């Protein structure tokens, strides 16, 4: 008889103990932040309850929720028509607009906020320009609406990228069927297209909502108090650890609730089961809506892309004329690149054992719990992870305010991005390939080295690139955990714009945008992909989930 209980030998061979240990280690570290928060709060439970139950806390929570919902709704209102117009209609210049529309992804929300304040704020560029005309007051950019607009403007690409593949994979026969039953375009859109887009809309919306919840830079510059901002101020100003931890717990619970809601909304319904007719949906002529539609897309791109680029360029020139020191940005850039590269490599390596377990050993009883745990950082806002690590770091002495701890925070936050990409790649590499290699005389670790890793390498690389890009832009965890004297580009941009030294912020901001989009450009494209950005959509967390991945695997099977 076998040495293992039957349940473990079921279906596939046992995972090797080394693999399981590695994955368990990753899961244990992922569990650190939430566990530490709970432990921290249970030290002074009465005080924590008092903080959480305060009416001001409830109001703050409500305001945060409202802000996240409004930003998500607005981002949907921008992304849905834009995705449809650039993919399915005869919009003039749609090929170029398709690329331009996704580009604001490279602009961090705090750079967007800085641009908005300097251009549209009091004594901003717009007001200066309008002053001769007698306009001395513009509607305030600060507060709820300003924050909502800026957030939506710089996060809608997440939705655009998740909606795009969904729109392209729609089965045109269903639309024809609906039209054949006598329903018009609008009814067909509402009854046939929209329901099919729902999963993409929800998973993209989830990304925007989580972004809004965890955003620190933009809400700070736009002076709008959300939970994240209040956590930071109460941590910095009063060193009141318990109230900071209590707010963090509330924020973590909200984020987890939103993720749960999204998973639940996906439910058991399947959208991928029936394959399309294998042809592209026809282009819809816009007719007299052509120019209004183009105007809409142009306005979005003007605000989300042209304005930031123009304003940054303006301040850069102004700064250089005024003799602003550009040199100092290079060391910050070096720090950013170093920390991001370390985080990218560490995340890719940490993701591999978890992804192998999840894809190759699905029936191993620990695989699923480990995978779920590794997604913890996906839901937790950066400020929460940072606080937990601060609390933990004080106990672990030497790690506190070290580069190691900063990188650890990045890995915790962005591991799911590396996971998603690696998972998809592993799903494409069918298990029979690994068995074929074993049958041809290779030992399990040789199979890993010659088949599994090479096949997953493109996905691992893509995942690492994505982690790099996200880490470059990360602000809240960086602000709290950076080693003394270790200044990154993100911090420099934020600090300078907080003091309204826009000329000083311009160069690092531009450098940040260029450096973080570099890995995307360098990334080799898989065969058959048109754009790096459309591929990126697949790598975003939530996109590496089985249905889409299975579809990719199926495509790969067709191709081989």
């Amino acid at each position, binding site marked *: *008889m*076998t040495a293992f209980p*039957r*349940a473990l*030998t*079921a*279906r596939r*061979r046992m995972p090797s103990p080394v693999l399981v240990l590695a994955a368990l280690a990753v899961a244990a570290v992922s569990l650190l932040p939430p566990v530490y928060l709970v432990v921290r709060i249970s030290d002074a439970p009465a005080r924590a309850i008092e903080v959480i139950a305060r009416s001001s806390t409830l109001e703050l929570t409500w305001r945060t929720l409202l802000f996240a919902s409004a930003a998500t709704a607005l981002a949907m209102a921008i992304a849905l028509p834009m995705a449809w117009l650039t993919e399915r209609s005869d919009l003039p210049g749609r090929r170029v607009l398709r690329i331009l529309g996704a580009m604001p992804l490279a602009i961090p929300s705090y750079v967007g906020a800085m641009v908005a304040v300097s251009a549209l704020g009091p004594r901003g560029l717009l007001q200066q320009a309008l002053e001769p005309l007698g306009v001395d007051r513009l509607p305030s950019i600060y507060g709820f609406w300003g924050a909502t607009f800026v957030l939506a403007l710089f996060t809608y690409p997440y939705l655009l990228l998740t909606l795009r593949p969904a729109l392209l994979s729609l089965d045109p026969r269903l639309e024809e069927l609906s039209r054949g039953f006598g329903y018009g375009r609008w009814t067909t859109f509402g009854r046939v297209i929209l329901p099919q887009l729902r999963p993409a809309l929800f998973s993209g919306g989830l990304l925007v909502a989580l972004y809004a919840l965890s955003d620190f830079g933009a809400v700070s510059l736009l002076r709008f108090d959300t939970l994240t901002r209040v956590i930071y101020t109460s941590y910095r100003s009063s060193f009141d650890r318990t109230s900071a931890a209590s707010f963090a717990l509330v924020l973590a619970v909200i984020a987890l609730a939103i993720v749960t809601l999204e998973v639940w909304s996906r439910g058991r319904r399947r959208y991928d089961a029936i394959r399309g007719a294998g042809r592209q949906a026809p282009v819809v002529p816009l007719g007299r809506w052509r120019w209004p539609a183009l105007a809409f897309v142009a306005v979005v791109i003007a605000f989300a892309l042209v304005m930031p680029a123009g304003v940054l360029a303006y301040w850069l020139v102004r700064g250089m004329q005024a003799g602003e020191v550009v040199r100092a940005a290079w060391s910050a850039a070096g720090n950013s690149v170093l920390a991001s590269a370390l985080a990218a490599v560490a995340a890719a390596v940490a993701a591999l054992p978890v992804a192998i377990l999840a894809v190759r050993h699905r029936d191993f009883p620990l695989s699923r719990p480990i995978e779920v745990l590794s997604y913890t950082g996906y839901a937790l806002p950066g400020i929460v992870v940072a606080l937990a690590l601060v609390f933990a770091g004080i106990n672990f002495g030497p790690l506190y305010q070290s580069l190691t701890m900063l990188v650890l925070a990045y890995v915790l936050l962005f591991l799911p991005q590396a996971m998603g990409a690696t998972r998809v790649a592993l799903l494409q590499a*069918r298990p*029979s*390939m690994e*068995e*074929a*290699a*074993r*049958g*041809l*005389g*290779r*030992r399990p670790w040789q199979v890993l080295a*010659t*088949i599994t890793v*090479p*096949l997953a390498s493109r996905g691992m690389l893509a995942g690492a690139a994505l982690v790099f890009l996200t880490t470059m832009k990360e602000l809240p965890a960086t602000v709290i955990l950076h080693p003394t004297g270790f200044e990154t580009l993100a911090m420099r941009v934020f600090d300078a714009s907080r003091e309204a030294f826009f000329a000083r912020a311009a160069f690092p901001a531009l450098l940040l945008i260029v450096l973080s989009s570099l890995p995307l450009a360098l990334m080799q494209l898989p*065969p058959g992909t048109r754009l790096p950005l459309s591929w990126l959509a697949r790598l975003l967390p939530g996109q590496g989930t089985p249905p889409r991945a299975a579809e990719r695997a199926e495509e*790969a*099977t067709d*191709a*081989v």
Partner: protein
Amino acid sequence: MRSDGVAVRAEGLRIAFGSTVAVEDLTLEVAEGDLVALLGPSGCGKTTSLRLLAGFERPDSGQLWLHDQQVASDGQFVPPERRGVGMVFQDYALFPHMSVAQNVAFGLRRGDERETRVREALVLTGLAALGRRSVHELSGGEQQRVALARALAPRPRLLLLDEPFSNLDLALRARVRAEVRDIVKRAGTTAVLVTHDQEEALSIADRVGFMWAGVVEQFGTPDEVYTHPATLHSAEFIGDANVLRLPAREGRVETPFGTFAAPLDVDSVAVVLRPEDLQVLPGGVAGEVTHREYYGHDQVLGVRLRDGTTVRARVGPHERLGAAGPISLGLRRAPLVFGTDG
């Protein structure tokens, strides 16, 4: 320790996944150089049996020898990489990041002989011109030959093929089948292939193992398995069969075609009549033709006999019969009778 000339000896191999028993009893002996087909309906455990032979699954009990090496028994298990077994997967499992030649070379140790062996395997499978190609550029039939070349290159002692023709379209299948048999025979390798297609099994295998519900119910030459099925399952699955379920008394069963011997200890039997064992016989059992399928090389008649029994009879293409009308049938040979009690 085992006799020469035996490539595979499996004794009572059993494996369960959770509470599902996939293979109940895999017992068979494959002679060296033979091409054996494991045949059975889907879910009968034939692919799992193949994976047991390859070492991708570890049996819960039973013993397995490949040539004179014991590779599985209680407490002993030789992993797939040390079995010297070549495998061709249903989906071919070609490595997409390698060329055709690199795929074929994968199982070979580095050395002078490697190049030569790759070339030999490519020539054997008719792929000599395609070595530098990427596997993405090949047709289905070519991919299959690459998988075969890759499996054969290390000169395996045993070649395993899992539904090797199921991904090919029908027109291609018969030709590729003959090609593969030819290649395997020229390589001189013992081979076991798994299929649910009886025509495939009967036409290319030296021996056929019929599997049902995780058990090898019969193992023999194609004509043995077809003409003397050991069980009702195999009679029904392999080939076309009229099955008449009738009561038996004292070792006899009465059929419209006469009385035949039945097992002594049963009350009910299944009488199996192959359609081609029925013939048009003036003065035989009278009936009505109810429909007719004309195939060219022969035709199949649906006939309702006097007592209401319906049978299918395969007759020559020259019988001039309408799609309806009277007919009388007789038997060419005695039917098979299986007891069906309990």
